[in-house]
């Protein structure tokens, strides 16, 4: 007798269930809501985080204050005529030295008779710009290097990662100090030092993300279709790998500002007497004992406020970009 695993199978057949809609179109959708792209949804999530929005507002205000602190001239054209800061930040002797806060000098005056309020408001230019520029340039250097290292692999990856390892071995600040000490003071040299030290973290971070994104089916699908590697990297890999880097970068703006302040505090970075918050703290060191608290407290508060706001924004960005929020969680529950 022939053993047949198909014996008795297929006996049942349903008759009479004939859907009228004979064509095979799959016309339903599971979500009737109009198409909202990722950016809109992320922005909506960000907006709901009140602390993050508050942080953003504070930074915006500080930025505005910095821009409108004193007139800006490009060439000989006055681009920005307003001056919120009543006095020239560099002008010494506009008032008696070491005056406590008053109506004419809300933040008091320092040892050179300069208006501290003007200096703090104007100093925002340095701190904010250093923060944003240094981080942006570090991203421009670190992200492509790390992404290519992760995507291409092989000796390119080894080379970049070993470089990263070596540089990582040095404490951030020590390296920055060394670079400034070698190349001297000045705004761009300071930025350069911060970039040289800052790119490492982003490179490593994005390389790790790229390694995991590259395993995803849609990357393989793009290759199966015949898309060129260059384009796959730029269009599929990096955008999907970049979220943690964005979060890190936002938070790093605060770190960079602190580092610039630290370098300023040590007397490195910008020329002494510059109205940069860190340098102001440094120069005012002696006054902490002497009792003229306003010389250091206000710049210190400014640093604190800026870094706090940036951190709140960074947290908000991370939560906004988190794909695990809301409706997706319900759908995954039902499996398949």
């Amino acid at each position, binding site marked *: 007798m022939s053993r047949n695993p*198909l014996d008795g*199978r*297929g*006996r*049942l*057949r*349903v*008759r*009479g*269930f*004939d*859907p*009228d*809609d004979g064509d*095979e179109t*799959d*016309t*339903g*959708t*599971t*979500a*009737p*809501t109009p198409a909202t792209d990722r950016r809109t949804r992320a922005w909506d999530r960000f907006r709901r985080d009140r602390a993050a929005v508050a942080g953003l507002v504070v930074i915006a205000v500080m930025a505005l204050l910095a821009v409108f602190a004193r007139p800006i001239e490009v060439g000989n054209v006055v681009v920005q005529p307003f001056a919120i800061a009543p006095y020239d930040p560099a002008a010494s002797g506009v008032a008696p030295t070491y005056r406590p806060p008053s109506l004419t000098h809300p933040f008091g005056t320092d040892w050179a008779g300069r208006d501290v309020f003007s200096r703090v408001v104007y100093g925002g230019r340095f701190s904010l710009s250093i923060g944003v520029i240094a981080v942006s340039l570090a991203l421009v250097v670190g992200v492509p290097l790390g992404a290519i290292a992760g995507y291409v692999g092989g000796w390119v990856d080894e080379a970049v990662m070993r470089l990263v390892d070596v540089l990582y071995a040095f404490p951030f600040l020590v390296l920055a100090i060394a670079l400034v000490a070698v190349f001297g003071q000045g705004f761009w040299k300071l930025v350069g030092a911060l970039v040289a030290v800052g790119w490492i973290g982003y490179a490593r971070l994005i390389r790790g993300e790229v390694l995991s994104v590259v395993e995803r089916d849609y990357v393989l699908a793009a290759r199966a279709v015949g898309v060129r590697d260059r384009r796959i990297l730029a269009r599929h890999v990096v955008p999907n790998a970049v979220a943690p880097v964005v979060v890190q970068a936002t938070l790093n703006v605060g770190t960079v500002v602190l580092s610039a302040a630290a370098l300023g505090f040590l007397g490195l970075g910008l020329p002494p007497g510059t109205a940069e918050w860190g340098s102001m703290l440094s120069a005012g060191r002696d006054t902490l004992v002497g009792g003229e608290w306003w010389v250091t407290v206000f710049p210190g508060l400014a640093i604190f406020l800026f870094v706090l706001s940036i951190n709140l924004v960074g947290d908000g960005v991370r939560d906004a970009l988190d794909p695990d*929020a*809301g*409706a997706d*969680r*319900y759908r995954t*529950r*039902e*499996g*398949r």
Partner: protein
Amino acid sequence: MALLEVEDLDVRFYTEGGVVQAVDGLSYTLDRGERLGVVGESGAGKTVSALALLDLLDDPGRIEGGSIRVDGEEVLGATPERLRRLRGGEIGMVFQDPETALDPVYTVGEQVAEAVRVHTDVDGAAADDRAVSLLDRVGIPDPETRASQYPHEFSGGMAQRAVVAIALAGDPDLLIADEPTTALDVTIQAQLLDLLDDLAADDLAVQLISHDLGVVAEFCDRALVMYAGQAVESASVDDLFYHPQHPYTAGLLSAVPRIDDDRDRLQTIPGTTPDLASPPPGCRFHPRCPYAEDACTKRDPPLATVDGDDHRAACLAHVDDADFDGDLDFYVEVDGEADP
């Protein structure tokens, strides 16, 4: 008195996209030693309702109404102490993916022993011994050695058996298995179903949740078909597969590919499952139903008796006072002949 009685269960998910009615008015019973199959596709609410039984739903899901009684005692609103005794003690649960059900940093033996300690009076070394005997009971060869291995050293089928062992640790009366074989190969699935067969013969009631009609046909005594969060048909498996009374069931049965059935082209049910945040008015299946009439858009059919208490279907065609004119003219042909 039935072992498990679910009455009018209502579960909602409060999501960004709106309120999703995941389970709507679900009622069914399960007797001691009975094997019930819960059949449905994705979004039917099978898993959600099972999690609700043990109050395992967390945000954004919430049980909004109904009653769940185990051995006559109400579960919803029970004290944490009672819930602890229930989970794993009276009701054991097995999930789909054995890899994630087991903690990778503890040996399998430790995990089974922990379950034993939590749900019985057995402690210490005796618990370890009992763990080994449980592993043996679920058909794991060489249980002594296996008990000291880690989950990653187990194959999928073996890991699933270990999960069953953990579920059995408290000597439960009811085992809820949610798609226990979906992640497994068909030959391994056969092994696991054999095991469940063996266990069920021991007076263990089993609620098997599956999208696989074949598995339900072979293993279960009775079946409950769910669609869009509601029960649409309830019957013995014989009745369900040979005399389906709900159009969705008929559609499912005609869509499932069967070996050796001489069909050229497969049947589909047009359309897709509805968005549970805004389900269709009236009967939730009506947009896809070839028998739908006007009345179907207005009234949500109750789970009405078709043939004695044992066979029920939620279709207006079976409700006497409904404004339904047509006939459900589908039927099951056996071996080329219509079955009486």
